[in-house]
């Protein structure tokens, strides 16, 4: 864009010459976000966003402060100061039953080796735990058992009053990178390349104490596990640094499916750009998963892949969805997928069923994925994917949001208020539907007119 500005401008061809910069990216008729509000409160990378209720969210990052925002107005409601170092984990916490007022609580962990429980309505620091040996990197609340777990170099189990119930032995120096809950009072912790399954033993008549037992270690991944999600009642998914995606049975912890050649470009299909861009191993690391009933959406390197759980294969992909690693994805209700990336952009995709089938036959192969996409980020070229008995889909780019000047770490979707993105440029941006906001403002205007008595409604 603006090539003429930066240099190597084209020769003018006429007064109203059509700009070479006109791209599909500038005309986004389906992109509803036509209004933005920049929120400034942090002074370092903002890494975490968490929704508190319909109109509030909290943000946290490397500056150690937590800020509570109003998602509608962008108003900064509270600033929670207590951590001295960067925040490493942020999770909403169920209200204490003892507490009569049902205030929204959040639990934050920081590199200063403390965990603090905050009241997001008052800004009060409810409780603080500082007896950690290592930085807590993940937090999980098991509401069923009224306990929560913190994962650092070891795994600790706490009750709602923040009393330590039990803990594991030292697991690893790198610490637990991900933690999910699975049935039968078990949790899965991702520690390096390993998945460790622990079972929690609730107090019984024999023993009054909680206990946590290591049950099994799963060693199927070749490299560090970066992401792990609980997809549905029967399976969970893990992804590793070298692009292995494994779908596990949630009950017996066996591998249901493994997709491990995302990075394998088909030499005969690719373009020059693909060769150039697919060199770094980073490009195939799986950073994030999101899922719906049918599909798992994986952020693999710079690309996005849609894996169908029924057919156990990739049904659509964008190998180069972004210029840089995709850090977070989310599935929106209307078959839309949103991804954000280190390149500072947020993109909105739509999963469309492809009508026209590709002509050439595609080799079978259970874990093979064939596809080709155009690297050009503006062009959203459908992935041609052909399988005998499954509809092929494509990820269609319907819009992108450019505002951050640095990597977009995470985003949050509000049904009513739009999208909140946070970034390494210290900013949070609230993206809103301009038309809807305009309507809301009109409503507010007439309400105010009525309050002032300037409006006489005919009833």
């Amino acid at each position, binding site marked *: 864009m603006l090539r003429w500005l930066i240099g190597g401008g084209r020769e003018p061809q006429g007064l109203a010459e059509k700009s070479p910069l006109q791209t599909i990216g500038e005309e986004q008729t389906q992109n509803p976000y036509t209004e933005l*509000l920049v929120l400034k409160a942090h002074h370092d990378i903002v890494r975490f966003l968490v929704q508190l209720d319909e109109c509030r969210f909290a943000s946290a990052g490397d500056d150690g402060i937590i800020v509570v925002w109003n998602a509608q107005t962008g108003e900064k409601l509270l600033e929670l100061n207590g951590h001295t170092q960067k925040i490493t984990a942020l999770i909403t916490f169920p209200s204490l039953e003892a507490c009569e007022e049902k205030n929204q609580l959040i639990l934050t962990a920081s590199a200063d080796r403390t965990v603090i429980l905050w009241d997001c309505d008052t800004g009060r620091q409810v409780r603080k735990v500082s007896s950690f040996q290592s930085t807590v990197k993940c937090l999980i609340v098991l509401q069923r058992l009224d306990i929560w777990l913190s994962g650092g170099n070891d795994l600790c189990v706490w009750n709602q009053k923040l009393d330590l119930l039990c803990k594991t032995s030292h697991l690893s120096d790198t610490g637990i990178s991900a933690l999910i809950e699975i049935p039968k009072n078990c949790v899965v912790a991702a520690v390096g390349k390993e998945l460790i399954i622990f079972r929690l033993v609730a107090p019984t008549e024999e023993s009054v104490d909680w206990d946590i037992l290591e049950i099994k270690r799963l060693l199927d991944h070749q490299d560090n596990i970066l992401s792990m999600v609980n997809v549905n009642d029967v399976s969970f998914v893990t992804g590793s640094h070298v692009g292995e995606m494994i779908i596990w049975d949630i009950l017996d912890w066996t591998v249901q499916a493994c997709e491990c050649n995302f990075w394998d470009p088909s030499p005969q299909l690719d373009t020059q750009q693909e060769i150039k861009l697919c060199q770094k191993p980073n490009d195939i690391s799986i950073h994030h998963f999101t899922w719906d009933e049918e599909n798992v959406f994986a952020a693999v390197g710079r690309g996005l892949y849609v894996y169908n759980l029924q057919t156990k294969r990739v049904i659509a992909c964008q190998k180069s969805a972004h210029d840089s690693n995709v850090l977070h994805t989310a599935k929106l209700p209307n078959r839309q997928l949103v991804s954000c990336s280190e390149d500072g952009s947020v993109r909105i995709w739509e999963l469309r069923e492809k009508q026209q089938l590709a002509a050439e036959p595609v080799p079978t192969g259970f874990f093979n994925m064939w596809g080709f996409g155009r690297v050009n980020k503006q062009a959203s070229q459908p992935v041609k994917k052909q399988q005998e008995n499954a509809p092929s889909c494509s990820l269609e780019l319907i819009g992108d949001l450019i505002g951050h000047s640095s990597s977009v770490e995470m985003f949050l979707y509000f049904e009513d208020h739009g999208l909140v993105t946070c970034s390494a440029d210290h900013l949070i941006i609230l993206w809103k539907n301009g038309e809807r906001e305009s309507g809301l403002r*009109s409503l507010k205007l007439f309400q105010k007119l009525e309050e002032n008595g300037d409006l006489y409604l005919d009833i």
Partner: protein
Amino acid sequence: MISAPDVVAFTKEEEYEEEPYNEPPLPEEYSVPLFPFASQGANPWSKLSGAKFSRDFILISEFSEQVGPQPLLTIPNDTKVFGTFDLNYFSLRIMSVDYQASFVGHPPGSAYPKLNFVEDSKVVLGDSKEGAFAYVHHLTLYDLEARGFVRPFCMAYISADQHKIMQQFQELSTEFSKASECLKTGNRKAFAGELEKKLKDLDYTRTVLHTETEIQKKANDKGFYSSQAIEKANELASVEKSIIEHQDLLKQIRSYPHRKLKGSAPYPGESEHTQDQASQAATTSNLDESADTDLYTCRPAYTPKLIKAKSTKCFDKKLKTLEELCDTEYFTQTLAQLSHIEHMFRGDLCYLLTSQIDRALLKQQHITNFLFEDFVEVDDRVAEKLESAPPRPGPGRPPSRSLEECPIPQVLISVGSYKSSVESVPIKMEQELGDEEYKEVEVTKMSSLDPQENLDYLDMDMKGSISSGESIEVLGTEKSAAVLPKSDSQASLTVPLSPQVVRSKAVSHRTISEDSIEVLSTCPSEALIPDDFKASYPSAINEEESYANDSDGAIHFRASVSPPELGEAEEGSLETPPSQIDTSCCIGKESDSLQVPLSPPAHTPLEQDGVVSIPPQRYRQKDQGFHVDFAVENASPSRDDSSEGFPADELDPDRLLASRDVSKTSLDACSDTASNMSSVTSTSSDRTPASAHSSGSSSERHKKRAGQNALKFIRQYPFAHPAIYSLLSGRTLVVLGEDEAIVRKLVTALSIFVPNHSRYAKPVKHWVSSPLHITDFQKWKLIGLQRVASPAGTTSLHALSRYSRYTSVLDLDNKALRCPLYRGALVPRLADHRTQIKRGSTYYLHVQTVLTELCSKAFLYTFCHHLHLPAHDQETLDVVASRQASFLKLTLGLVNEDVKVVQHLAELLKLRYTQEAPGTGRPMLRFDYVPSFLYKI
């Protein structure tokens, strides 16, 4: 801006040959009549031609007891301004219509001289011989050494345009009252100081005399007093008397503020008002404090002198200058105010009236006027003050603080009231003493009177009144207006009366005899006479009543008179018959002083010859600092030499059209070269101390320059339309260039198209060199960006390229523009490159006119209920949207992209209306995903 006064100039021009069709001629009633003297080659706008001065000016004159009426200074202090106009003669004229009963003396039934806090009188008079008309504001200052303690002064606004004076009477009166108040406050302070010194002198003298008497008494054992001793005793007695009188005077002058306080107490806005004052400039507040303290504390450094029994004759003394009378600080402030007045009323009456109407209309548009108007803020502030502020500055405060927000005294000139006073009678004043009944109209609230209304009243007055050429006509007096309520039902009664007017109890019928002076109207002088003042003299405030209750005032002295022992009384109270008083010729002149202010100059005593007069030059020199700007403007190099002298000015149509700002033409002429322009601007930037004024004037200049440059931009760049569309629709326009001056100039020019988000600042950033960020686009709608040929510059361009969807980019170096397509009809009208408009200010007004129309469209769109809310529950949003679209298209007649302009303005209106407090609303960045195009020359 609502209207364009410049348009008035185009009365009749040669018809354009290329005119495509002949428009039907205007109906007779709409056509502008040709100037009757056009055949003589005179410019129809040169009303000044009859007068001997080139433009309006302000004259301050004094009725000196030594030399009679004399001019003291003029504003502006430039001989070119008043030219051959005879200031001495005119001073005589204006001083001879002073109706004030400004005398001090022993009122009947009182033993002591009384200070009368005299109202100012305001008169309009015309001198048909000189072709001069003047608003004359008489005021009286106190001077211990002057006869009757008073020095009559007057300030006159002299113009060749009689209608201007009449129609601007109220405004003139307001502004001059501020100046007068400033002078009088300073004068009270100085007078109190004088009295204190005098008292010390007297006290010292008494001690000396007392000692001498004691010595004589002891030496005298014969049982009777020698004549020498009696003489001494008499002398002592007269000193005692003098002390009492001076103490009394001091008490009176000091009591002034308290009375004012009582008078103004009913106004609820008092405290708020005071708070407002606190935020004023530090100098002013310092002045306030010092005034409060200085006024009542003695100066310890003063060493008393012995006063000779027979003091020197008045006429041997050099009278104090105006500056000495008023304390330098106050004097300077007054000059500032006067030069502010001079600026304010510069130019044609048509211009003044139009801009007044303008302002009045703008106030009505309080919902939309923030968008494109930049001076609304000041106006509003003043207007708010007007509603809340008490009509008077608080006690002990110098009027400086009221320079800005002194409310307009409600001038009432009744239609019928002057009838009685038209008869020509010898100068005479009928005093109706305190028993004058007056109607108690309970008007507690200062109603903000519509200026138009008042103008109408003034206008009615003038009709038929001025016609009678030679003889003096008192067309209307403010006094008569004051008595209106009781007299009968008149039209003007409907106008709310201000309390001040109602309270002035004194009524005087004043008339003057055959002379060529026409007194067109007078108006109530000082705005406020508290109720507790009992008027025993017309236009005067009697002090007696108030301190009758005092325990230690004059009553105390009277009580102590009883001890018959001459030398014993410590208090020094001598019972001496008033007739014997002759200690000082300045005290106790009850009989003389009664007539002095009223007597025509011919009656001044002959002894005045040869007496030192106050040289007016002194003030002129001091004055120059304030008026340098004018001189520079005249000397501006771009101006034609021929226009230097004032006769040329009259032939210069531009000058005459908008003589409000002299520098206008020069600016227009040289605005092409930035350096030249800036030099003119810097030199002519106002040096007047009145800061409020200077801002207003500079914005005027700024507008002109911006208009000129915008006009240039439109002519120079064929793609001006999409660029202006970007600005109007809220898409940030980045002006990219290497040369800061050029970029700044263009940014300033284009900023006239940028709608404001709030009324505090335009979202315009004139010059940045750092890479732009998303927050910049949220904050600024017009940015001047530096292009640098360095890596840093490239990042800056990359950032620009990254955010290209939010911006339009105008590259000045490559003469290229990248922005969305525009196909509307609005901008071509706003920025027609073939426009006939040549002058920057005219173009600016044109832009304002179009934008105002646009604003009203946006207002309609925003506040039409059915356009934004569903009419019933079943109605979908789509229906509402289609209704909006059809309204915009059919009702408002907007095509294509014009819709977006109105929608953007509507969003701004909504935001502004709904936000609770100014400044709390967050600016959001609204944008569209539309393709951009590259335009290049």
